[in-house]
């Protein structure tokens, strides 16, 4: 049987100052995780999430850092959390950006920024995260992918490539570390009502079988499950939270 989560375990959620990441941080704290709330520029937002978690009786710490920066940011975030809260035994790679445009007109910079943040940074964070997880014989990595990637979305060649890559990485890394009690899964949100998707056209809503956008809390619930002891035998999978879009 797999080991249960150690009492002192910390979950690090990237891009957690608002939207889906914030909802995930709160949901994991409700499940008893101490939570590292990563932010890039929105320190106030991250501190609000930390305060909300602490008011509810949980433990959390806002940890700033641009995860797309190759120069040791991942190490710094983990080191700080390990010193102040405990071993990081869950990682949620949530931070993501968009830089939309038709492929025919897309600049290299827009391609590279999206791949760097949404895929390469998630790889670096995952590589660092696995060290304490393997040692503890327990770990949970959840990558926030998207229905875009498995499905087409005109204007998002960069984002689709990054998210499809994230799902591929999820599957392969899952097989590498499964026997150490470390699971690696993805969630694939559809259209979720956040700042990133504020202008969803009616035609898009019509194409969603559930006829509505999802909420950050609905995505967080899926992450919460995948991070739980109950999901110890779920690894390499992608859980779609999309109102039936990909069905």
């Amino acid at each position, binding site marked *: 049987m797999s080991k249960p989560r150690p009492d002192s375990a910390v979950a690090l959620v990237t891009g957690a100052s608002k939207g889906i990441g914030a909802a995930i941080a709160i949901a994991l704290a409700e499940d008893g995780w101490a939570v590292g709330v990563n932010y890039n520029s929105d320190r106030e937002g991250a501190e609000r999430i930390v305060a909300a978690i602490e008011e509810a009786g949980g433990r959390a710490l806002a940890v700033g850092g641009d995860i797309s920066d190759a120069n040791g940011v991942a190490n710094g975030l983990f080191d700080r959390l390990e010193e102040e809260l405990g071993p990081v035994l869950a990682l949620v790679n949530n931070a993501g950006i968009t830089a939309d445009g038709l492929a025919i007109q897309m600049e290299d910079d827009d391609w590279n920024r999206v791949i760097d943040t949404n895929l390469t940074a998630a790889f670096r964070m995952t590589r660092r995260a696995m*060290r304490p997880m*393997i*040692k503890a014989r327990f770990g949970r990595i959840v990558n926030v992918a998207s229905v875009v990637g498995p499905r087409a979305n005109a204007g998002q060649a960069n984002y689709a490539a990054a998210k499809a890559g994230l799902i591929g990485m999820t599957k392969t890394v899952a097989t*590498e*570390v499964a*026997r*150490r009690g470390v699971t690696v899964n993805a969630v694939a949100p559809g259209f979720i009502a956040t700042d990133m998707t504020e202008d969803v056209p009616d035609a898009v809503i019509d194409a969603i079988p559930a006829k509505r956008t999802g909420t950050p809390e609905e995505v967080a619930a899926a992450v919460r499950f995948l991070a739980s002891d109950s999901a110890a035998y779920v690894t390499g999978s992608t859980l779609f939270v999309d109102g039936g879009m990909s069905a």
Partner: protein
Amino acid sequence: MAEKTITPEAVEATVREALAQFGPEPDEIKLEATFEELDVDSLDLAELSQIIEDEYGVKLKGDDVGKIKTVGDAVDLVVNRAG
């Protein structure tokens, strides 16, 4: 954690202790034993590298670790890398 001083004896003890966690019986872990015989695979060797780095501050590259075949090779690699 303070790093340990590297001697062949200390490294051998660390390697034996680490490998024993991965499944082989302690008396099977001889210097001439191959990882194949011990059923020690690439993930085990990656974890061994991590333990060596934590204890001795010696960083082993995946390429180097991929070439070693026996317990003795692992000890030699760490000792030579430190020297």
